[in-house]
């Protein structure tokens, strides 16, 4: 159902959260997560910042390492308390009733504001039934909100593990279009593929024609699947046209 040791992750996160929020807030949060009471679960999710605050989480290096051992690629570094609280809430939710679990969490996505979306997409690698969230993840990549995109793209192992190739390629292209840091995308090199290389080369030609620049990582991604001569030819074309910028 989870694909990792859920109890171990719960325990580790509980310790970290207790170190980062007030005793009262923890007393409250530790009692939440009853997914059979939808209204209450929704309200808990929405009001999280009021209880936990929005301070940055402090986490010891060994705790970070522990999280990465339990769920490879999963990190909470740089997260705020409310983001972690929301992810923890979802981790607490009983996943036995698959239909209810999916409906309740999907409904949170449908009504979410930006910070909530960040938390929800951050939770993808630890949600139950990972294959159920593929369409949701692909939908998130269509967002125009930078922080939401970053929650999906940066240090998030889910997309590389579960997205089909077309959706993965969209993620990479969207990252380029929105000036994201490609080196923070988990699995960038592992999921590199010939179709992506073709899209990237077409994109490079288009940019060249418009007298616009491309990020240098583009050549790095396209090279393994593209004839060196073609890459050089496009680079050449690009450098001759690109005198406007």
């Amino acid at each position, binding site marked *: 159902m989870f694909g990792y040791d859920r109890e171990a992750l719960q325990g580790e996160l509980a310790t970290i959260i207790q170190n980062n929020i007030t005793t009262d807030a923890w007393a409250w949060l530790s009692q939440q997560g009853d997914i059979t009471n939808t*209204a209450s679960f*929704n*309200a808990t999710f*929405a*009001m999280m*910042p*009021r209880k936990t605050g929005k301070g940055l989480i402090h986490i010891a290096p060994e705790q970070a390492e522990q999280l990465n051992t339990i769920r490879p690629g999963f990190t909470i570094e740089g997260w705020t308390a*409310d983001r972690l609280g929301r992810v923890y809430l979802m981790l607490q939710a009983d996943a036995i009733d698959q239909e209810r679990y999916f409906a309740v969490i999907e409904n949170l996505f*449908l*009504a*979410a*504001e*930006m*910070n*909530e*979306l960040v938390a929800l997409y951050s939770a993808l690698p630890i949600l139950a039934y990972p294959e159920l969230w593929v369409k949701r993840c692909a939908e998130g990549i269509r967002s*125009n*909100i*930078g922080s939401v*995109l970053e929650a999906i793209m940066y240090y998030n192992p889910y997309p590389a593990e579960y997205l089909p190739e077309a959706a993965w390629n969209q993620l990479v292209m969207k990252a380029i*279009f*929105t*000036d*994201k*840091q490609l080196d923070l995308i988990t699995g960038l090199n592992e999921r590199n593929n010939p179709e992506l290389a073709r899209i990237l080369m077409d994109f490079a030609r288009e940019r060249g024609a418009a007298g616009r620049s491309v990020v240098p990582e583009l050549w790095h991604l396209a090279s393994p699947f593209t004839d060196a001569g073609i890459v050089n030819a496009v680079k050449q074309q690009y450098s001759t046209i690109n005198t406007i910028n």
Partner: protein
Amino acid sequence: MCCSHSFEDKPLPGQKPEAFDISAVKGMKFFDPHVHMTSRTTDDYQAMADAGVVALIEPAFWLGQPRTGIDSFRDYYSSLVGWERFRSSQFGIKHYCTIGLNSREANNEALAEQVMEILPLFVYKDGVVGVGEIGFDDQTAAEEKYYRLQLDLAKEAGLPVQVHTPHRDKKHGTQRSMDIALEHGLDPYTVIIDHNNEETVKEVLDRGFWAAFTIYPFTKMGNQRMVEVVKQYGSERIMINSAADWGISDPLAVPKTAALMKLNGISAEDIELVTYRNAITAFAQSGQIDEADFGVNIDQSAKFEGNSILRGGQQPRVDKSSIIIS
């Protein structure tokens, strides 16, 4: 909002409008506690930021035609806490909202029931500073029912209430709105009565409520009248908004009115209260307003550790006088 006027039967203003001289209020900060940015273009955000608007509240209201299903409400509320907040942030304007079922749509009871079910999901969200705008339009029994239910919701959530007062039979509707709020045990200091005029202001203030004024062409206050109101009633518990929406309206109404007040000799302190401070005091009772979040200066060409703040392929601000579009 605002918009029950008909475009056909109202004359357009005859004389040429006076140019707005921003220099009169240069360096001042403004808070527009009622503006429907969903209906406005991004250019308006830019103009508002340039004129000194550092924060605003977008109340939930009517899109110009009735919604026919619950999903439309959900999407609309989501846009108020999502896309609009983000769009606003791109110009350094802090965007808050109030969430509610508007009076007009309270008359579709079957749908109103469903809306009441999803409201708790939204009123507890971060940055929701009140339940609003709610109140009366036609003053029907259904409107009263959902007004009352939402007053209870506001009380339970510990949020201020933003009350829309009706265009027709305004004075009576305003009195009735206040009577009902008190009946439900709300402290008048947590209730902002909006769209006041010379006829309603005295009673609203006397009874301890906040009196908001909407500077909106044709149907509501003009800002020359507003100057007179402030001269007569002072600045305590009075606030000014634009209620700009899809009608012919002006998102710069707050800074423009501030400029006019300055030119008419109203003190800087009073101007600051009615165009900035009072709205914050009233809505900060939600616990959701932090002035440290206001007016974060954004240089859209700047990068932070190689990251641009520009999102979604957005281009940095450019000199619009150039004929070249690159």
